């Protein structure tokens, strides 16, 4: 399989709350720091990318926020304008106002129209080679399949017209595993693991895009191995913990309780990790990112995650 960041277009998805945006930003940052001209695009314009990278607001027009790293946010109306400008050479911008409104309306009703404008923009950037890599902070698990399968769906629904002919080259880009991939971000918890396994199946069955990686975020550290665990059990005996308390002049039980909680959480999650590994095609590489106790957001976090990704990717 092609290296994760050696592709040209990478969709990063995952269940809400697993750190999808953080991982997408870290992947882009890592690629940019290794000299690849990288575009990071936020699809659900919540402004998280801007906040995480401390860059100020993003817009449809890409902006270079540090060497080799550009950021933008998707705006389907702007994408439509660009599309019309490039493809139909419609000169009268003023007329596009109501047109875009009508389009917005059609897009609400006719599935695939909004998606095709989104995916089309990325495929366009890839085709024109404006960047070495486009990282998409894609919609959450429930929506990504609709987005990735939009060109096919449109191909089936629309028999003639410009869009029909446009979807062909888009499909070429999306279907080439050396060019395009999707990465699913998850955490070692029950629902995210279930959704990841289910989504991996749907990506394979309903889209032409290759699953490039599963990235497991917030993996808790292992406190100790088996023989050390026996030592820990001994330490928890009332006489021993009382003695420990005397030695440190305080109650040792909160520290022992916390360690037990940490062990249990880690163990519960390890079981979900095993289930995940068993449910995903063994050919799909999995990357593991540690739980960050210190901070969860901001540029510093993105840098830490990018470094962990670099270690996992061996670069």
């Amino acid at each position, binding site marked *: 399989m092609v290296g994760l960041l050696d592709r040209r277009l990478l969709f990063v998805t995952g*269940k*809400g*709350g697993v750190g999808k945006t953080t991982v997408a930003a870290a992947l882009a940052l890592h690629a940019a720091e290794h000299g690849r001209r990288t575009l990071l695009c936020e699809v*659900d314009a919540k402004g998280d990318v801007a906040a995480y990278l401390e860059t100020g607001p993003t817009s449809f027009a890409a902006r270079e926020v540090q060497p080799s790293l550009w950021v933008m946010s998707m705006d389907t109306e702007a994408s439509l304008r660009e599309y019309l400008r490039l493809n*139909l050479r*419609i000169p009268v911008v003023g*007329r596009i106002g*109501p*047109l875009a409104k*009508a389009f917005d*309306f*059609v897009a*609400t*009703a*006719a*599935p695939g129209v909004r998606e095709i404008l989104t995916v089309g923009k990325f495929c366009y950037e890839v085709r024109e080679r404006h960047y070495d890599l486009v990282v998409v902070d894609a919609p*959450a698990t*429930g*929506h990504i399949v*609709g987005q990735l399968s939009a060109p096919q769906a449109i191909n089936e*629904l*629309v028999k*003639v*017209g*410009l869009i029909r002919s446009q979807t062909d080259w888009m499909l070429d880009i999306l279907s080439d595993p050396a060019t395009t991939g999707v990465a699913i971000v998850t955490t070692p*918890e*029950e629902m*995210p693991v*279930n959704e990841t396994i289910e989504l991996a199946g749907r990506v394979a069955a309903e889209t032409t895009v290759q699953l490039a990686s599963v990235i497991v975020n917030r993996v808790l550290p292992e*406190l100790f191995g088996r*023989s*050390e665990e*026996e*030592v*820990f059990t*001994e*330490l928890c005996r009332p006489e*021993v913990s009382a*003695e*420990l*308390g005397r*030695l*440190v002049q*305080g109650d*040792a*039980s*909160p*520290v*022992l*309780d*916390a*360690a037990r*909680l*940490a062990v*249990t959480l880690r163990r*519960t999650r390890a079981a979900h990790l095993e289930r995940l590994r068993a449910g995903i095609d063994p050919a799909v590489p999995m990357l593991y990112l540690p739980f960050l*106790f*210190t901070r*969860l*957001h901001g540029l510093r976090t993105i840098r830490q995650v990018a470094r962990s990704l670099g270690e996992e990717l061996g670069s």
Partner: protein
Amino acid sequence: MATRRGRAPDHRGASLDGLLASKEIVVACGPGGVGKTTTAAAAAAMAAARIGGKVLVLTVDPARRLANALGLEGIGNTERRVPDAAFVDAGVKPIGELWAAMLDTKESWDALVRLHAPDERTRDEILSNPLYRNISGRFVQSHDYIAMERLFEIHAEGTYDLIVVDTPPTRNALDFLDAPERMAEFFSSRLLRWLIVPYRSKLVNLASRPFYQVADRILGTQFLEDIAQFFILFQSMYGGFVERARAVHRLMADRRTSFIVVSTLEAVPLREAEFFAQALVDRRLHLGAIVLNKVLPDYLRDPTGLVVAQSVRDRADELAAALAPEVGGGDVDQIRRVLTEIGQSYLDYRIVAQREDEQRSELATVPESLVSVPYFETDVYDLAGLLRLGAQLWGPEIA
């Protein structure tokens, strides 16, 4: 350990029992991945166990094991009773009945079309229209509307004393609140009429209008006609839909309905939950409670815990030597490593616990009840687990 950890602290100390006893509909909402489904199921299970009456939990996307526990495996819209035996196995004798149903979006849409279609031919044409199938199956916003619609329908049947609803994960937490209104707007929109007029009247020459010229070049005539055909069919149901959507909206705003916002204390979900709670208040909807899940235990913020943990970590050498005679089978080196690890681990988790506490005290919109539920060591996947969680929601005196 569970008993020693006890209940995570509340700032208001209130619980959910009063809310569940007095309301007919309780809607659990909030960001994804915070245990919304489990919280809704736990609240319903407790209401059935402690308050009595017929309680229904209408759920959207339960984890497989939870669906199994509720007897929902492979079941669509049909409501099923959770057998009393399941409660007895969990060590509880329920006063009332717990029923469960899952939301099947496609099935619910079809039912709605059957309800509103003016005649059989229109009904069949809509049900077999490719755009309709796309919309009912995949169109994401349709889930939001259909969940509320289905709730309205069940409530109108008058079968249950309490209905607890889990809301679908949405891109934007407000989507489902606005869904009925948007659905009504959609059908009464002038734009919709404008779009389909040329297809209704053969007199209008499409090619004469710039919009259609452009649209035609992009989408193709056939597709435009498919869209128009679909809307023409759907417009026949206009009156019924709009009226229904308004009725659904009224039910949401009714005093018998309350909302529970579920979140964790992580920054991103909490920010979303807070925004949502404020939106409920702004819309004059009843914000009954905020439930905070997966809260780390209090002892992690204990000031003496900090000192002890630091000593355990920093004096591990000396402590290991002193404890070695009492620790059977462990060599000093191993004991030292274990002490260093557990001291550090406490300090790590302490940072998270403190951050959570800060987040909680910064909550701007605080409803009558603010309930904190501690981290459970294992996932909740059976009725016993739901009742254990329910007891936390309920308040300590009964738990």
